[in-house]
């Protein structure tokens, strides 16, 4: 699959765990990148957009909700699919971020099957 993925989470450990879980789900990406917050993610996206962005909500510098809005303003990221990965489970938070332009939501704790279910439709 010639697709690219970026994981945006302020915890380096969580980024590794997400990457591991994506691999366990059987999905593979030609290019994978990581960012520790929204600002870093935007810098990397301005150099080269990705197909799928996995984004935590609570992060320093720029949180996930703000990042979604900014990415949706970037013409180069028009086709980027944004999936939130967070411990947040309140319907209000999920609806807000989806209204801002996110395409999916995965709640922590997660399983490889959940990543398979949520990301596969974007890879076909």
């Amino acid at each position, binding site marked *: 699959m010639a697709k690219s993925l970026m994981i945006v989470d302020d*915890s380096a450990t969580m980024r590794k*765990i997400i990457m591991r879980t994506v691999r366990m789900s059987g999905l593979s990406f030609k290019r994978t990148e990581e960012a520790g917050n929204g600002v870093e993610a935007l810098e990397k996206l301005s150099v080269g957009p990705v197909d799928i962005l996995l984004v935590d909500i609570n992060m320093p510098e720029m949180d996930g909700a703000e990042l979604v809005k900014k990415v949706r303003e970037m013409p180069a990221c028009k086709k980027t699919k944004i999936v939130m990965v967070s411990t947040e489970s309140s319907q209000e938070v999920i609806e807000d971020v989806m209204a801002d332009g996110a395409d999916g939501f995965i*709640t922590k*704790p997660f399983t490889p099957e959940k990543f398979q279910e949520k990301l596969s439709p974007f890879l076909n």
Partner: protein
Amino acid sequence: MVEQAVLGDALLQGTKEVFETMVFMSLEESSQFDPSIDGRALLGSIAFKGNLEGSLGICCSVPCAQAIAVNMLGIDATEKINEEETCDAMCEVTNMVMGCLKSKLEDAVGVLEVSIPSVVHGRELKNNLGKGASKILVKVNIADEYVGELSLLYRNSPEQPSDKHGVDK
């Protein structure tokens, strides 16, 4: 009204869910009378506020926390894991358990706001909630090898009417 037993059960079930799906280690409530954590311990904690306010803590020995980190990261057990990775893993576990608890209690107590999790070397979760605070302590066996402690210190928020979203003590 949320009874203490319901809170305790939600805490245990939420922790089991996290350990089963993300840590890949079994976790059961301890049947031993008074198991204790051997040696140096790490305590992950996170605060919450809303109709219910307080802190959640997860405590285990340093070797247990290292085993948790090794399992979560999927690295070889023979590889050396550093303190930062161990503490980060404990933070993530604490954060996810709080997320599960929050989700399980949302219907009963409404939306809870949570803080950023932190980890310290130590054992006992304490705070200054003062009068009217309650504590739940659940001792658990992790992977049939380690002892862990789940604790919840809480009280009704003074800003909220206790007859609406109260907690039985």
